[in-house]
């Protein structure tokens, strides 16, 4: 009987894994099937020629047509959200894992879990309401890249807090005891021993956060994205973003070519995410090597 249960569990778990891998391949395959034919410089830069494209890339020329403004907007959004949320998330994660205890830890954990469960449209609404409130004191302020970046930071913060906390808590206590026995202050134990060891877990959180910030549409719809704003010149400008472009094209397309452009934009978003994940992975690898294994001879 036990052998039967063992086999059934093996079969069930294997099938689940296979189903998910199959779904992922189907999704990517479908995107490629629909969007690959339209991929090219024309999709990204419109009708510009090569010298004009180089000017656009180096900020010498404004471009309205194509996906380029949305790609730049998406990159800015991810960068802003991550640069705001990362220090806060790391700090709160360290506090929960290494300092907080008892009721404080329970309270903080409940709050972060609640925040993680808030629908993104509610965070978007909060960002919009905040803009309206601030508009009373700063009349020039309206929905813009800054507000979207901050709202997205709020959205990804719980992922960063929880993954940092879990990555630290999963480290064996022997590391803390060994470091303490070597005369390390608590802060030195955290910075020099625990954080470098927790990097893989923390980077998983960063990758999740990048994905979440890059794909979210609900938050940015209420906080500053517009269909054809071009590349923002400051944090207080409107901007374009790929997820909104995809949503807008899918809901407003007038012919098959426009719909294909939406699929092309989805493929571009996927490629950008893969590049950002790869970049994060390379930074993690480099940081691990540098922090734990490499040294310079005097």
């Amino acid at each position, binding site marked *: 009987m036990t052998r039967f249960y063992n086999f059934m569990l093996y079969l069930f778990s294997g099938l689940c894994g296979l189903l998910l891998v199959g779904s992922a391949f189907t999704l990517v395959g479908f995107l490629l099937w629909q969007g690959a034919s339209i991929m090219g410089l024309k999709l990204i830069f419109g009708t510009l020629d090569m010298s004009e494209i180089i000017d656009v890339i180096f900020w010498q020329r404004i471009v309205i047509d194509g996906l380029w403004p949305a790609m730049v907007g998406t990159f800015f959004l991810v960068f802003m959200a991550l640069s705001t949320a990362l220090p806060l998330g790391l700090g709160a994660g360290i506090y929960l894992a290494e300092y907080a205890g008892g009721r404080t830890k329970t309270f903080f954990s409940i709050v972060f879990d609640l925040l993680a469960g808030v629908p993104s449209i509610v965070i978007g609404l909060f960002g919009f309401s905040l803009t309206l409130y601030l508009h009373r004191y700063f009349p020039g302020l309206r929905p813009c890249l800054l507000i979207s970046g901050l709202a997205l930071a709020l959205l990804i913060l719980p992922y960063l807090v929880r993954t940092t906390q879990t990555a630290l808590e999963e480290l064996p206590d022997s590391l803390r005891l060994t*470091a*303490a*026995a070597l*005369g390390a202050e608590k802060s*030195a134990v955290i910075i020099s021993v625990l954080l*470098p060891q927790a990097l893989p877990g923390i980077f998983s959180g960063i990758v999740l956060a990048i994905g979440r910030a890059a794909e979210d549409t609900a938050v940015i719809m209420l906080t500053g994205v517009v269909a054809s704003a071009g590349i923002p010149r400051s944090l207080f400008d409107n901007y374009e973003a790929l997820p909104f472009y995809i949503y807008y094209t899918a809901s407003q397309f007038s012919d098959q070519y426009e719909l294909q452009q939406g699929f092309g934009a989805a493929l571009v978003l996927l490629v950008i995410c893969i590049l950002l994940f790869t970049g994060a992975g390379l930074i993690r690898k480099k940081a691990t090597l540098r922090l734990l294994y490499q040294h310079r001879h005097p």
Partner: protein
Amino acid sequence: MQEKIIEIEKLSFYYEESRVLNQISASFSRNSIAAVIGASGSGKSTLLTTINRLCDEVAGTRVTGRVKIMLDRQKIDIYQPGISLPWLRRKVGMVFQIPNPLPMSIYKNLTLPLKMAGIKNRGLQHDRVERVLKDTFLWAEVKDRLREDARTLSGGQQQRLCIARALILEPEVLLLDEPTSSLDECAVAEIENLLLSLKESCTLLMVSHDLAQVERVADTVVEIADGALVGSKDKV
């Protein structure tokens, strides 16, 4: 008569409500090897952790009595208020029962305590690394693989690395909690020779189950049973 470097007076240790050490009084001479023996669970390892106050890292523990150690030429009650624990633990090093190199390179394992003690000069760090690796007879074996993960070393090498790491801050006392219990005979002999050579520069307090080993290396033997001192003798 050698100078007493560690003096323990009526030391009791409690974990929550249970008493683990009961009114222990003992003293240990400078530049000697003292062995603490006793049955499993008698409180030997706990006694060691009260001497560098590593026991403070465990919640729910309490100590009464005094432990005075001669550090920086001053006899200091390590349980008096205001004692810096990092400073104390740099002066009273510790080696654990199971080799516990940190998951990083051999070199970083050795420079980490220096960095944490504020010694940032790379030249000085390298000199100290080379010296302790030579002192622990590891230099020839690892000098070409300092960037490798310390966990790739053999058990005996790992334990010698841990001793080197404890020595790199030049402690005045070295606590060793059954440092050879997880090693094979060959590695045990290496560590014992190392311990005998180390007592020239510091005082060693070692927990051991192996009475033959105690006979070979210890100058003083202290026996603990059920948390209380039941015997103490100088071998010479």
